[in-house]
Every structure is written in structure tokens, then in C-alpha cells.
């Protein structure tokens, strides 16, 4: 393949973005049409790239080893395909959902810019273009969130700042890695993390997992769920950022660094993953707004991926990556469904919704399938990938992570029972009387994603063999082993799978218990857990954003800044304004006071001066 073709996935969306920017706002349908068609073309390009031989494009750029290098190989082919697919679906969905929005022009522009940047980041084989695209995504993220309206700006800034901080960490990591290895080419690097390179690993890991939305860098996601357009949520935090983040994390763990099983980096990653799973899902459980609930799950699920990749055993890694793609599908589907509901019912508050299954059957179907998938119901894709992660974490010997993952599974299912129950079943809420099914592009997108969830679950061999196994083939940990995860992908009768099933039952029980306790109101089903003695306090604190690292960080920044300002900057200024001027004035005053106008005084100076000079000359002569 001609290496220059590698620019197409970047340039095509870029052109689409420019088209959208330049097209006057008054032109209505053309923009949507071109966008959908263009996105389809994008998918076509990605598909045609799939399975190609490894291709490298190198353009000299800035010297110092900074070249514009793109590399197409199995992993990037796969991610590229996913990116293009989601772009297409979101574009399709947006034609309805965003119709008539005041800033449509910018919306599509940023959408395709995001796609272009993502494609670039995925293909980049040199750290500088990688960071270029990677960090460039911050701008589109910022811009897309602000499309949500005036109130969204705060959230957009939050997202930007968190992302920026983590990206800077990654830059530092890259810088260290470069200084250690002497090259910026990703494909040339493979080091053992120790000493400085370990620092580099952690820093780059922060960048990667933060992009994916891991704790504690997740806090903008629930905020954005409220402020940003739901398509943006479905596109970025739910899909693209997971793809990119976990892609990067896998690159770091598989290629750039040689991570041993249960080595310190692996344990750190797993711990972070486990914490993310549990803490985020606890937050998700008690949410009373569908979009917020979904957004917390978007965080929680990252934990599985990190846990999987962090196990450093082949099945775990494969599970993590597989979970990434699965999650992108069902979480997008869920967000899109939520968006559909929002568009039709005007709200996503669980309390105000109910019984929509009849009036919006297709949306409900899509939602339920996706919810089942995320909960890990057999035989959907979520089950497969989660099982792989469970296996992987179990293999490391640290069962505690497996337990945490199971706990997450329980609560995930419980919260989706609550959500599904309160939105689509139960008595129909008064406000929802006039709700109808949404337009075809919307349902099409949702159903397509749901169908993929089923497909990847039932025919899991397809993604596993096509996508996942080739990626791991070159991995040192898997070298020599014959990789085949399909064998027991859907196997139920093994201890781990059985425990997982049991977890689901526990979740059902919890839900029913809560449902009864809450006076048959589904949205209150999580209240028993919410009300648990210690947990309740913690929840309150969390609601007050005490655990929000961003808010605390900003407070810290401000405090530090005030400190530096008051005790370093101002004293320096005071030195000039007060001390120097004061000393000058004081000296001047003293000298002026000495000139008191008395002749005798002046004469005394003269004679004294003569005496001193005579003495000095005498002394110096000797």
C-alpha cells in the first residue's frame, strides 16, 4: 500500500470538518448529508485498510528526531475501524438528535476534527505527532462540550484542565522515555520500567488512563453528562476516549514497556482499575438521572479494562482490549438511547420517566440489550470480555482484584435494573403521555450498536480472532503460546463464570429488595445501599464534590498560588516599592537634615575633611 494513503484517515475527516466550518449556517440539509456520507466513506477507508500489511509513512518534520511518522498495523487498523464506525453512527444519529441546534456548524466541524485527531493519534508512530493529535483532542472536547450551551462552559473547562494536566504528565513521561531511549519512534522502544523509566511509565499511564476516564481523573464526565449534548457523551467519553485511552495503555504495557506479571507497575495499574470499578459503580448506583448514571458507568467500566491490561497475562490483556471495544459499543448505545429518550420525553430524570417500553419499543430494545451487555449477561459481549478479565486477574493470584471486579458486576447490574426498570417499565409517568418512538436514524444507530453487542457476544470468535489475537501475537508474554481465547469464551460451567452468574442473582435480589422498600418505585431501588450508615456519609461528601480531585486540585492550586503570590511575588515588589524607595528617602532625609544651613557646621565639615584627608594621606604614605 502506498504509505501516503495513511494520511487519508486524518485528512478525510479534516476536510469534512473544514467543509462544515465553511458552509454557511443557513444551509441545512446539505451539511448532514455530506457528514453522513463522508463518515460512511471514512468507514469504507478504515475497512479497506483493515488487514493490510504493516505500512509506515515517514515525513521529516522538525529535526531532532521529530518526524511525522504514521504506522498502520493490526492494532491501529482495528482501532481505526472502531473510530470510523462510531463516527458514522454518531453522525447518523446526530442528523435527528442535533437537528436545528444553533451551533450545528461548529458541532459537525468539531465532530470530524475529533475523528481526524483520533485517527492521527491512533496511527502516529512518533511521540510528537502522537501528542500533537492526542492533546489536540482536548480542544475538540472542550469545544464540543461548550456546544451544550452556556452552562456547559464550566464543565468544558473542567474537562480541559483535567485532560491538560494528564496530558502534561504524559509529555513528561515521553520526555523521560526519550531521554532514556534516545528515540521518539514508538515502534523502536521497548524498555523495562525501572528507575526513571518506571517514572516515565507511571506518567504515561496517567495520560492514558485519564483519557479513558479512570478514577480519579473522571470527574468531568458526570458533569458533562448533564451539560453536554448526549451525542457528544456517546461519542467521546463513551467511545473514542476509551478506545484511545486503552489503546494507548495497551501500547504502553505491551510495546513500550516490558511489564512483568505482578510487577509493581502491573499492580499499580490493577489497583487503580479495581478502585475505579468499585468506586465509580457505587456512585453510579445511586444516580437518579439516566445520563449521569451512564456516565459513572463509563468510568466504572474503564476499571475492567485497566484491570485486564494490568494483569499482564494474555487473557487479561485480551479481555481488557475486548472490553474496550465492547464497552464502546454498548455505552454508546446506552447514551444514544438515553438521548433518544431525552429528546422524546424531554428529561432523563428517572423519577419523571416510566413505562416507555411500549411507546418507544425500538429504543427500549436497544437499551435493554446494551444494558444486558454491560451487566455481563450471557451470551452478550460484555459477558465474554468480563469473564476474560476475571480469569486474567484470577491468574495473577491476587484474588482481591477479582473480588472487586465481581462487586462491580453486582452493582452494575443492580443499577441497570433500576434504570431500565424505572425508564421503560412500571407505570407510565404523567409527563410521558405524548411520547413516541424516535426517527429511524436514531433507532438505527442504537439498534446497530445493540446488534453488534449480540454479534460480538455470540460470535465472539469473530472479534477475538480478527482483532484481538493478532495484537497480542507479538507480545512477549504470549510468545510461544498458542493464543486462543475463543474456546471458553462463552463457557458457563467453570467456577469463575458461576460466581459471576451468582453475582447477577445477588444484584437482582438487591434490586427487588430496594424496589419493595422504596414503595414500588424503581428509581428508589438503590436507596437501601445509599442509606447504609457509613456509606451514606461518604455519598454525601461525594455529592459535595469533596472527593472530586479537580475541585480539590483547583483549591490547592489557588492556595499554592496565593502563597507564592503573597510570600514571594509581593515581597519582591515590596522590596522595590518600599525598601529601596524607603532607604533612598531615608538616606536622602538624613543627608538633607545634615545640611542645616549653619555656616559653622559647613566649615566644620571642611576642616574635619581636611584633617581626615591629611590623616589618610599620612597613613597611606607610611
Amino acid at each position, binding site marked *: 500500500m502506498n504509505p501516503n494513503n495513511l494520511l487519508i484517515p486524518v485528512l478525510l475527516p479534516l476536510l469534512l470538518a473544514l467543509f462544515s466550518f465553511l458552509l454557511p449556517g443557513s444551509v441545512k440539509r446539505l451539511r448532514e448529508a455530506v457528514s453522513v456520507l463522508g463518515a460512511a466513506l471514512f468507514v469504507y477507508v478504515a475497512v479497506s485498510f483493515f488487514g493490510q500489511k504493516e505500512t509506515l509513512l515517514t515525513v521529516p518534520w522538525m529535526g531532532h528526531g521529530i518526524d511525522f511518522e504514521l504506522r498502520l498495523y493490526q492494532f491501529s487498523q482495528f482501532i481505526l475501524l472502531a473510530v470510523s464506525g462510531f463516527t458514522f453512527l454518531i453522525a447518523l444519529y446526530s442528523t435527528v438528535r442535533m437537528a436545528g441546534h444553533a451551533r450545528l456548524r461548529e458541532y459537525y466541524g468539531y465532530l470530524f476534527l475529533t475523528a481526524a485527531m483520533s485517527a492521527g493519534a491512533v496511527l502516529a508512530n512518533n511521540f510528537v505527532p502522537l501528542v500533537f493529535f492526542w492533546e489536540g483532542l482536548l480542544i475538540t472536547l472542550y469545544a464540543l462540550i461548550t456546544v451544550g450551551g452556556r452552562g456547559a462552559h464550566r464543565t468544558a473547562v473542567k474537562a480541559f484542565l483535567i485532560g491538560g494536566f494528564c496530558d502534561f504528565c504524559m509529555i513528561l513521561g515521553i520526555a523521560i522515555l526519550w531521554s532514556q531511549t534516545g528515540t521518539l519512534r514508538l515502534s523502536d522502544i521497548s524498555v523495562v520500567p525501572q528507575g526513571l523509566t518506571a517514572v516515565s511509565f507511571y506518567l504515561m499511564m496517567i495520560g492514558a488512563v485519564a483519557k479513558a476516564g479512570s478514577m480519579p481523573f473522571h470527574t468531568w464526565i458526570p458533569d458533562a453528562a448533564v451539560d453536554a449534548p448526549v451525542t457528544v457523551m456517546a461519542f467521546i467519553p463513551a467511545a473514542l476516549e476509551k478506545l484511545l485511552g486503552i489503546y494507548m495503555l495497551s501500547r504502553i504495557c505491551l510495546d513500550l514497556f516490558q511489564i512483568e506479571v505482578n510487577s509493581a507497575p502491573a499492580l499499580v495499574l490493577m489497583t487503580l482499575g479495581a478502585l475505579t470499578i468499585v468506586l465509580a459503580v457505587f456512585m453510579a448506583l445511586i444516580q437518579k438521572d439516566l445520563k449521569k448514571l451512564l456516565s459513572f458507568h463509563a468510568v466504572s467500566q474503564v476499571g475492567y479494562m485497566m484491570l485486564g491490561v494490568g494483569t499482564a497475562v494474555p487473557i487479561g490483556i485480551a479481555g481488557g482490549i475486548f472490553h474496550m471495544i465492547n464497552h464502546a459499543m454498548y455505552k454508546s448505545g446506552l447514551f444514544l438511547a438515553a438521548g433518544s429518550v431525552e429528546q422524546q420525553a424531554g428529561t432523563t430524570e428517572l423519577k419523571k420517566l416510566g413505562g416507555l417500553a411500549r411507546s418507544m419499543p425500538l429504543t427500549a430494545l436497544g437499551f435493554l440489550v446494551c444494558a444486558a451487555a454491560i451487566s455481563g449477561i450471557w451470551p452478550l459481549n460484555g459477558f465474554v470480555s468480563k469473564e476474560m478479565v476475571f480469569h486474567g486477574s484470577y491468574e495473577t493470584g491476587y484474588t482481591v482484584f477479582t473480588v472487586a471486579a465481581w462487586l462491580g458486576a453486582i452493582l452494575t447490574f443492580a443499577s441497570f435494573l433500576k434504570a431500565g426498570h424505572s425508564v421503560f417499565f412500571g407505570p407510565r409517568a404523567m409527563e410521558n403521555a405524548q411520547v413516541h418512538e424516535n426517527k429511524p436514524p436514531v433507532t438505527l444507530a442504537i439498534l446497530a450498536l445493540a446488534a453488534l453487542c449480540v454479534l460480538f457476544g455470540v460470535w465472539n470468535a469473530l472479534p477475538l480472532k480478527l482483532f484481538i489475537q493478532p495484537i497480542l501475537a507479538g507480545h512477549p508474554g504470549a510468545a510461544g503460546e498458542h493464543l486462543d481465547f475463543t474456546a471458553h469464551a462463552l463457557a458457563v460451567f467453570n467456577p469463575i463464570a458461576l460466581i459471576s452468574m451468582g453475582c447477577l442473582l445477588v444484584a437482582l435480589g438487591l434490586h427487588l429488595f430496594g424496589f419493595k422498600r422504596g414503595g414500588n418505585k424503581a428509581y428508589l431501588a438503590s436507596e437501601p445501599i445509599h442509606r447504609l450508615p457509613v456509606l451514606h456519609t461518604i455519598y454525601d461528601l461525594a455529592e459535595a464534590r469533596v472527593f472530586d480531585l479537580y475541585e480539590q486540585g483547583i483549591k490547592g492550586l489557588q492556595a499554592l498560588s496565593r502563597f507564592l503570590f503573597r510570600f514571594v511575588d509581593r515581597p519582591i515588589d515590596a522590596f522595590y516599592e518600599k525598601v529601596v524607595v524607603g532607604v533612598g528617602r531615608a538616606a536622602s532625609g538624613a543627608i*538633607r*537634615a545634615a*545640611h*542645616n*544651613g*549653619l*555656616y*559653622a557646621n559647613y*566649615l*566644620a565639615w571642611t*576642616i574635619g575633611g581636611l584633617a581626615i584627608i591629611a590623616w589618610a594621606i599620612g597613613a597611606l604614605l607610611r
Partner: protein
Amino acid sequence: MSNLWVLNLGFAVLLVGVGLYCLLTMRNTVKLLIGIEVIAKGVTLALVAGGAARGNLMVAQSLAITVIVVDVAVIATALALVININRHTKSLDVRKLTRLKG
């Protein structure tokens, strides 16, 4: 002769000292001018004594005369100043001349 020169020089210095004392401690402006005159006398003495001691008497005399002439001019100007000041302040006290300071 050298000893005589030293003697004269000693007295000349004494005169200058007395004159400086006057300038330092006295208040009356006219008195100060008298102090200046005393100093001038000391200087004249020193000049002539110097000449006399080394056989340069004629030069010394011409120098002394010039000094005296200069002295007159200075004293005249000074007295004119004193009289003018006296017109303004109605006083001869040098310690009241402290308009200019700082």
C-alpha cells in the same frame, strides 16, 4: 635661617588656627570677616617668611602684595554682601542665615 622660617610658619599656622576658630564659633558676620583677615595675615606671613628664608624675598613680596590686593577685593565684596544681608534681615547673626538648607 631655616629655624626662623619654622618659627614664622608656626606663628602663621597659629594665626590661621585662630582665624578658623573665629569662623567656627563667632556669630557676628563682621567678626567672621575679621577672622578671614586674620587668616590672610597668617598666609601673608607664611609667604614672606618663606621667601625670606630662601633668599626669594622679592618674589615673596610680590606674591604678598598680590595676596593683599586679592584680599581687599574679597573683603569688599563680602562687606557689600553683609550690608545687603543686613538690609534684609536687620541682623548680623550668621546663625540666622539658615533660609537655605536641606
